[in-house]
């Protein structure tokens, strides 16, 4: 049995070492390229959202590499994401692939997730699956922590490329620390590396928040690498969602991190009073939070035809006026070109710089 899961940010770095350690065979999906997207677009329904197409392409590429079990979370609405697995299974079966699709009806419940893992792995005991599940989540939170550090220090680096080197080294260190104790020990080491890095003097970088749909905010291959591009230009990027927070809201494994969904709902309350699927609450709530906490501008990024984020977009037009915060809306689909996005970002950054000078 060769397990795979669609490419999403640093997810493969989290489940890879854990599953390898217990002897499972894994096929890593290749990093999404133009070909991945073309494959997905070719076989997906026309108006399916962008993440659907990328994950479908990613699945096809993994199946070509010999995977026979796909892990796709599943869900139960109101966003389309919960129905991905069904449609993708139909499409892939029509293409003639043989595989097992593992998905849960309610991935928010721990019991369903464990049932799903038991179904895929066969005979393992619940307790060992429980341990595997949480070690994946804990690893994920360490990776997210490193990523956050990277986005903090990259715009401040004095020697170009030093932060990237540290980032690579940190990922390598985390990948090689198998036990929880070693993971915890790597924290001060990585912090020390970042602290020691040479920094530019007397610079306060522009701070830009990225809010929106999880997949496009997180995955550089889905958002035209604008997060990395902004960081390279010396702009601090803050993200409204990250995978470990998403998991922490549901499974509660980070003792010192509060529930980000509840946190965002509190800020979103004057504008959006009910969760309308996807990351709509996070998008609105975090925009309000960031606007009140000294962020220069907000980039609202989501896939074309994303239903929850369209609700958020309508509401953000009001937030923008009320809180006097510039918001750039980027809608991503398979026809989006890097050049077009970067031109708009340049103009947006110019605007932010001018606003800052005026103050």
């Amino acid at each position, binding site marked *: 049995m060769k397990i795979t899961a669609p490419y999403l940010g640093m997810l493969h770095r989290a489940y890879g070492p854990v599953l390898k350690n217990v002897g499972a065979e894994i096929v890593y999906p290749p990093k999404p390229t133009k070909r991945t997207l073309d494959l997905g677009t070719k076989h997906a329904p026309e*108006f399916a959202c962008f993440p659907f197409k990328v994950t479908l392409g990613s699945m096809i590429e993994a199946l070509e590499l010999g995977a026979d079990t796909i892990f796709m979370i599943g869900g*139960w*609405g*109101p966003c389309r994401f919960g129905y991905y697995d*069904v449609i993708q299974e139909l*499409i892939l079966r029509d293409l003639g692939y043989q595989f097992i699709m593992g998905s849960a009806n309610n991935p928010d419940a721990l019991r369903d997730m464990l049932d799903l893992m038991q179904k895929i792995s066969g005979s393992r005991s619940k307790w060992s699956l429980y341990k595997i599940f949480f070690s994946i989540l804990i690893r994920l939170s360490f990776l997210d922590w490193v990523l956050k550090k990277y986005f903090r220090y990259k715009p401040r680096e004095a020697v170009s490329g030093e932060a990237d080197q540290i980032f690579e080294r940190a990922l390598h260190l985390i990948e090689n620390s198998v036990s929880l104790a070693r993971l915890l020990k790597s924290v001060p080491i990585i912090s020390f590396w970042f602290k020691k890095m040479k920094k530019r003097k007397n610079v306060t970088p522009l701070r830009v928040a990225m809010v929106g749909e999880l997949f496009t905010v997180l995955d550089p291959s889905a958002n035209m690498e604008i997060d990395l591009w902004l960081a390279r230009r010396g702009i601090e990027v803050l993200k409204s969602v990250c995978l470990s927070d998403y998991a922490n809201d549901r499974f509660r494994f980070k003792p010192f991190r509060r529930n980000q969904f509840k946190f965002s709902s509190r800020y979103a309350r004057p504008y959006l*009073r009910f969760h309308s699927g996807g990351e709509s609450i996070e998008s609105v709530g975090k925009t309000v939070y960031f606007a009140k906490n000294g962020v220069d501008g907000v980039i609202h990024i989501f896939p074309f035809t994303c239903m929850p984020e369209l609700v958020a977009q*309508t509401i953000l037009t009001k937030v923008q006026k009320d809180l006097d915060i510039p918001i750039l809306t980027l809608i991503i689909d398979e026809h989006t070109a890097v050049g077009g996005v970067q031109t708009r970002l340049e103009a947006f950054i110019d605007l932010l710089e001018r606003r800052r000078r005026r103050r």
Partner: protein
Amino acid sequence: MTKVGIPRGLLFYRYFPLWETFFESLGIQVIVSNPTTEAMIRQGSKLLPGDLCLPIKIYFGHVESLRKEVDFLFIPRYISIELDAYMCPKFIGLPDMVLCAIDPLPPLIDLPIHCKAQGTKAEENFYLKVGRIFSKNRKKVERAYAIAMERQSRFRLLLQKGFPFEKALDSSRSSEIPENPKEDGEGKLGMIGRPYYVHDPFLKKHVVEQVEGRGYDLLTTEVLEDQAIEEGVEHLRKRIYWSFGKEMVGAAIRFSQNGSVKGMINLASFGCGQDSFNFELIQHYIKDKLPMLSLVFDEHLSGAGFSTRIEAFLEMIARRKNRR
């Protein structure tokens, strides 16, 4: 007399008899916006980001035209009307979107209906709560709800008998159910689309009237009872968790099993997230059992383009019939 405004859009086409009778039994005047015009669509498009679907834009056009004439606007937050299915995310955020996009507004009646979280009683509780805004008398509100539900079920029954929407709306006022006078035309065609696509005057002109003008009968998803739709979707690997999506896929599968339906027209809104998946499912399960025509509309739709395609499709169906 208090005036409550109901925009003629979205769930109006499903629940209007219930809403109207409920408010009128409480002694409240109901004001409905005029049928959709092109000016309303333009107005709605101006208020909203471009990527939203046309029905939402139409709805905003209606809200805009209504807001100055009424004391309350009735924009309920429909979250779920079944135990295991949601409505569209845009319905869930609808009152908030209206509040953010239009200013000033009369007070909204935007209480939620959430059967998935609160059980089957949620719908009744919603109406009791709405009634409490206008009347302290609980008995009176309960009676109003009972009368309204009676009319709503008569309305659904009339639709199931094949009456057109406007006729069903009128006839449901009286307690006797007339027989359907319709004689057989060229044949029956299935119409897979949400009620707020099929009955909206703007889209009706371009699609429904084109087909009916050529002598075909259109069966909407509403001619099927809930039970029939459940039977249609029971073989899916996973239940569809959108109420309207389930209705559309279930109806399509039932139409394909029904020998007297000659073809099917799929009506989808441009950029509708759910339709993209529903029609993929329909295409997968029906494939070559029935001829299908897929039409995607948005605010720029041209009547000529649609009528050409509909004409070609109907000719193809006529030829199939003759060959057999």
